[in-house]
């Protein structure tokens, strides 16, 4: 009896730091949200949430004729860059995952995985620098100015690709081996097994990969700032420059004052809501998938 009590004590003692850690990380999210709302409040109350979207341009420091706080163009910039990047990275990442799992010869699979892991560890600013000195001039040769939505999509796509591939492989690997053996026993071809058995079962994991990496693409700042051209406008094509919300914060936070500063915190709130929506969508897709598969 005593021993059991003692071990229970121990387990409580072990649980406490874990609980504190869990509580802290939860608290941090709430604190950040509260801080964002508090800092953004002057803009939300004086300018109004509506004007953040309805003002045609972003010109918060204009003295003559009044300042304008339209963020729609930059919000679209963020959505286009991140959306394009994930559209690019998801299929390629899945293909790499399948390759590593099923198609790569044994002697290649393991070193190849290390290369992909290495790629995942390259800092974003390095991608940005490479994009600025190599990719942007390359695009510019065909379609000036080069710094463009396309450059942003390519750089971000490349950045999130390795992680998508690694997560996809994990998701594929988590499909029970019996399913595959059973499919083989039924005489299904490899293509069929992948298409009809593997992918549907790996879908929740794949969706998680997509959602997490889209979130990362939305939040990326430095690389995007270096290759996207940062002109506040609705892009007419992928060759037009855009400014994302994150790049805007990075460019202006240093000197922004009063309402301008509050509006930047407002754009931070918008970014956070975007991620919340994303997580919510991911959650629902996953729930729907799990529901339909029992």
């Amino acid at each position, binding site marked *: 009896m005593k021993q059991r009590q003692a071990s229970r004590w121990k387990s409580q003692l072990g649980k406490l730091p874990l609980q504190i850690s869990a509580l802290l990380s939860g608290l941090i999210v709430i604190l950040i949200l509260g801080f964002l709302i508090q800092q953004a409040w002057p803009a939300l109350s004086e300018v109004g949430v509506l004007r953040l979207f309805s003002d045609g341009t972003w010109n918060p420091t204009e003295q003559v004729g009044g300042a304008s706080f339209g963020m729609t163009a930059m919000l679209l910039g963020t959505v286009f860059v991140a959306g394009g990047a994930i559209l690019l990275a998801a299929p390629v990442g899945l293909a790499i995952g399948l390759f590593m799992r099923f198609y790569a010869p044994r002697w290649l699979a393991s070193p190849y995985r290390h290369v992909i892991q290495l790629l995942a560890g390259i800092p974003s600013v390095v991608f940005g620098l490479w994009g600025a000195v190599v990719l942007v001039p390359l695009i510019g040769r065909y379609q000036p100015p080069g710094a463009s939505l396309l450059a942003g999509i390519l750089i971000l796509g490349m950045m999130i690709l390795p992680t998508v591939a690694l997560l996809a492989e994990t998701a594929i690997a988590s499909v029970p081996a019996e399913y595959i053996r059973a499919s083989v026993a039924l005489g299904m071809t490899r293509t069929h097994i992948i298409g009809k058995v593997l992918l549907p079962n790996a879908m929740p994991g794949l969706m998680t990969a997509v959602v997490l990496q889209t979130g990362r693409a939305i939040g990326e700042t430095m690389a995007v700032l270096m290759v996207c051209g940062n*002109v506040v406008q609705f892009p007419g094509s992928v060759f037009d420059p855009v400014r994302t919300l994150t790049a805007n914060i990075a460019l202006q936070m240093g000197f922004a*004052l009063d309402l301008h500063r509050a509006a930047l915190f407002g754009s931070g709130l918008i970014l956070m809501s975007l991620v919340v929506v994303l997580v919510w969508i991911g959650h629902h897709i996953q729930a729907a998938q799990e529901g339909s598969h029992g």
Partner: protein
Amino acid sequence: MFNFFSTQNSLRPGMLVLGLMLFAGMILLTGCSEASSQQTTQVKLVLTGSSTVAPLVAEIGKRFESLHPEVRVNVQTGGSSRGVRDAREGLADIGMASRDLKPSEQDMQSFLIAHDGIGIILHKSNSVAALTRQQIIQIYTGKITNWKTFNGKDRSIVIVHKAEGHSTLELFLKYFKLKNTQVKPSVIIGDNEQGIKFVAGNPDALGYVSIGAAEYAEKHGTPLKLLPLEGVPATTAAVQQKRYPFGRPLNLITTNQPSEWAVRFIAFTQSTEVDDLVKDFHYVPIH
């Protein structure tokens, strides 16, 4: 049943250790940062602001540190407006600005440390040798969009413009009597380096940056060229002789009560001891 319990029990010490490690780690981390900051530095000078002034001041800071080992000089960029703001709000000991103080900033004091100018830059391969003031205005407002207007290649002009908050932008708009909303930029860049990299990588680009930074890059093999302005070549020499029409001062900014070390640092940057550094960066010393 028994087995089940025993595995549970064997897990618990592991959990305890992990939990304690996490906790200890957090405490250690906070402890460490406090201890190290107390040990290594007695005086910390923070300078923020103009990306034109920052590289020079960082070098001067290194020399100052070697003369006064107890001082750490920390230099951050962000544009002249940030420099003035940070100095005023006490976030920085000294602000850096590549312009004069504005009428709204007269509560601060400025200390001249060097002269610079703003130069129009092109890619080295561009055959255009000169642009008039009017032509530059027409390009930046989107009225002329192709290099062939100036007998160049049949390529559209890529207009490189500065982000807000940088004095280079403010001075450019003032010099050419433009409003920022009139400018139709192709690309917006942050600091001088980014602008120089972009123009060097894009044969159709037209931009404007600090003459010192451009001359420095040009001397080190970057493929760009500075255009003369109103017939005067954009060189350090022309800035020095006050012939170049688009010059500007590089200043350090403080409140009316700067700290003792701030005063000493400013005196050092204004002394002849750093003239060689100023020249290294292709700025013009004040002496």
